């Protein structure tokens, strides 16, 4: 397992997420693709179980720290640790349970898993923030609009994942992830 390369990829994808998010946003829907989730989905599709959840926690915490929530009436921003990490962990569990049914070398698989996983992650995220908002936290939050944007974002993430699969899938062996053939050869999934 090549942790150093995974950390570098994480750093790169966090940079892509922050730098290109606005440029790739579909203003009408508020939909933005998530590069970081694509990396998460790729790891969840190929890596051992503990690696997946540590990656989910690390990437989630980085996103929690990187992106802040605006407060009502533009009175500031707030950093909330946890929601992304939890959402990514739940999405990772979903991908983990589905990956055995998939042909992992197919770029469409990453696209599909990124779409489904992202949708679940976004629903968890919107749910967590909505609970916080409902419990009186002064965050600027509109659950309905965010939910619509989340659906658009998930689809967008899935499409982008198909393209990025051509870059990520060849890295499977470089990262030291076991390939599907060896797993089919008698190892547990």
């Amino acid at each position, binding site marked *: 397992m090549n942790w150093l390369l995974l950390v570098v990829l994480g*750093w790169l994808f*966090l*940079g*892509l997420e*922050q*730098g*290109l*998010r*606005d*440029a*790739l*946003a579909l*203003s*009408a829907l*508020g*939909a933005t693709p998530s590069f970081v989730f694509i990396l998460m989905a790729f790891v969840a599709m190929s890596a051992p179980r*503990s690696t997946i*959840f*540590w990656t989910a*926690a690390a990437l989630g*915490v*980085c*996103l929690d*720290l*990187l*992106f*802040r*929530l*605006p*407060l*009502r*009436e*533009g*009175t*500031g*921003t*707030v*950093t*909330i*640790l*946890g*929601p992304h*990490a*939890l959402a990514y*962990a739940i999405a990772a569990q979903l991908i983990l349970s589905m990956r055995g049914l998939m042909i992992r070398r197919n770029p469409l698989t990453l696209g599909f898993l990124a779409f489904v996983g992202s949708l679940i992650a976004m629903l968890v*995220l*919107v749910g*967590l*923030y909505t609970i*916080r908002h409902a419990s009186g*936290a*002064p*965050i*600027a939050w*509109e659950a309905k*609009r*965010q939910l619509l*944007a*989340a659906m658009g*974002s998930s689809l967008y993430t899935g499409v982008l994942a198909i393209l990025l699969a051509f870059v990520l899938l060849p890295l499977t062996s470089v990262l030291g992830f076991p390939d599907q053939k060896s797993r089919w050869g008698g190892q547990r999934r």
Partner: protein
Amino acid sequence: MPPGKTRQLLPITFVILAVFAILPLRWVSWLSSFSQLTQTLVAPISHPLAGLSRWLAPADRARDESETIRALEDDREEVRVQLLQALDENDRLRATIKELQRGLAVDPDLRVVVISVPVIGSAGDLADPLLTVRAGRKQNVDRNTIAVSSGLQLVGRVVDAAERTCTVAPITSKSSGGITAVILIDESSANGLACTLQPRGDGTLVGDVEDRREALTNTVIEPKIGAEVRLRDPNHWPRSAQMLLVGRVESVEPSPKQPLRKVVTVRPSIPNLERVSEVMLRIVPESDAAAPVLPTPPAKEGRR
């Protein structure tokens, strides 16, 4: 670390994260320093990409004129804002004369320092865009600071300032809340129809317009499509922001609640405020922040 310990540590980590996720906001305010650290770590990747993407897909494709013309237009707009601020302030100043005569010292000259800074990425997640800008408390940026773009188009307000970066909430972001503005009837004066605008989330602002009639004929004064809309919200925005351009009226429709009143849709002169590559921060020195604003002479080098 042995695999057994790793297995034990994982659920503990997620339990801690779950606790953090539900802690009251006042208990997690210290996390913002870690947020700044993460921003700094990611900046070497995000900053060039943000610059490149904003160069490839600029906020306003129509603005391809030369630097000189842009600079001249900005100067012209600066003078125009100063003129409108002067006209707007006249009434208020007349009222304050009485207080001045009672001996209250009010500095009539509001100094505004303008610095041009790049946008280095997005700070907001999900559907509410926020801009991360490379200027912070070191440059005297605080929550009174206003961000404008070319043509003195109001971009938004600083909502969070760190040591070297700050976060700007664009006026078109739903999180920035509503603003009170004035639709200019006559472009040579600050006279206009007051309106309360709310961001719609698609880059425009929508709101009800004041119902005003001509004194002599009693005919309704209606906002015109294309009319300039400028900020006049002294209760919520600093004085350095008053009369800055919010946008132009894109459509006028009857209000669904009150058919006799009108609802306007206002679009900023820059179509995508979230994609500006650089902003100009109008910083009011702390000592002047509470002072009333008066227009400064249109000295080119001053831009005060």
